[in-house]
């Protein structure tokens, strides 16, 4: 029997062989999976927004003052990549051996986000750009469209099971 870690929007998890990391109902969010095939160590992040703008910092500080809670670790796609690498290295993975997989980035409504591509595409672009900057190859991607997805990472072999319901 394997252990399953469930993560929600804005969260991330890393783990060893024998664990599954699962995240449900991905819409325009982007799910970034990094896996080290040799060490059988990997992680998954479920990011909501492409990147932190200057305006965002103000808003978050403002909100923090009211709420007194730490920020969600995987709120932004680009920062999640860095964070995920750091966490994987902490438990013994190697940055050079990491391979990436991306899923999500759908566009559920046409009227949402006035611009042409929508936030799903921006999320995908942001994650992809950061991975390229860091030189991590993207092995596979299952993104875009107008469909919600569920992703399940098997840390035994690095396979990601992406399923839809519609």
């Amino acid at each position: 029997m394997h252990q399953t870690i469930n993560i929600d929007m804005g969260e991330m998890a890393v783990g060893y062989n024998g664990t599954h990391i699962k995240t449900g109902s991905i819409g325009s969010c982007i799910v970034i999976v990094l896996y080290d095939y040799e060490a059988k160590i990997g992680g998954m992040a479920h990011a909501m927004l492409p990147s932190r703008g200057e305006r965002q910092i103000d808003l978050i500080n403002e909100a923090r003052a009211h709420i007194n809670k730490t920020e969600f670790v995987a709120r932004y796609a680009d920062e999640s990549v860095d964070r995920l690498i750091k966490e994987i290295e902490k438990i013994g993975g190697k940055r050079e051996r990491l391979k990436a997989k991306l899923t999500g980035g759908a566009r559920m409504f046409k009227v949402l986000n006035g611009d042409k591509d929508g936030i799903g595409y921006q999320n995908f672009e942001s994650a992809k750009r950061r991975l390229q900057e860091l030189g991590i190859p993207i092995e596979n991607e299952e993104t875009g469209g107008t469909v919600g997805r569920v992703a399940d990472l098997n840390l035994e072999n690095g396979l990601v099971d992406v399923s839809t319901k519609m």
Partner: protein
Amino acid sequence: MEKYLTEFERDQLVEVINIGTGNASTALSQMVNKKVMIFVPDIFVDRVELVPKFFGKSEEIMTVVFLRILGDVEGIMLLMFSPENALKLAGLLAGNHKKDIRFLDDMDRSVLREVGNILAGAGITSLAKFLDMNILHSVPDSATDMLGSVVDSILADVGQGSDVVLVFNVDFQVDGEKIDGQFFFLFDPKATAKILKATEKKLNYKVNNNASNN
């Protein structure tokens, strides 16, 4: 939740939403020619990432009609049905009954969007009148998918501008047809403050009026 809103502010907001949904459900009632019951609004304020749980089971398939609220107060209005209920409602209005949500064709989707349009029109016009504001709504769009995915996309949009979101949920039921649905209204803190200010102004005005009459 108490740390975000006082009891009095909460009551004010609930009353405002009651006016909107009351009018919207009257419109629905006229459309289907049946009695429509609405329930007391539920209110939820928290960080954007924590909101999906308020909407329901994340992996359940739902039909959601989406409208953007524009103008003096900006926000989002949603109309949510289970696929069965969406089919029933579309069937009731378009006159063709289908059994499987996968057979929902463009016509049915269009019917549902139109329902959204009419309900939002009625609800938002009454809000605009009550708050003395200029409020409009966008064209509707609909999606049928896992609830979490749909909500996730909407929240990403809200999250771009704000860290905290206020959500209202009003259940309604079409009598005799067993069609249940839910209205959702989403406002960021800025819009919430505007609504509160407008209601306060209205209340003061009424109090003053009464005083001068006496």
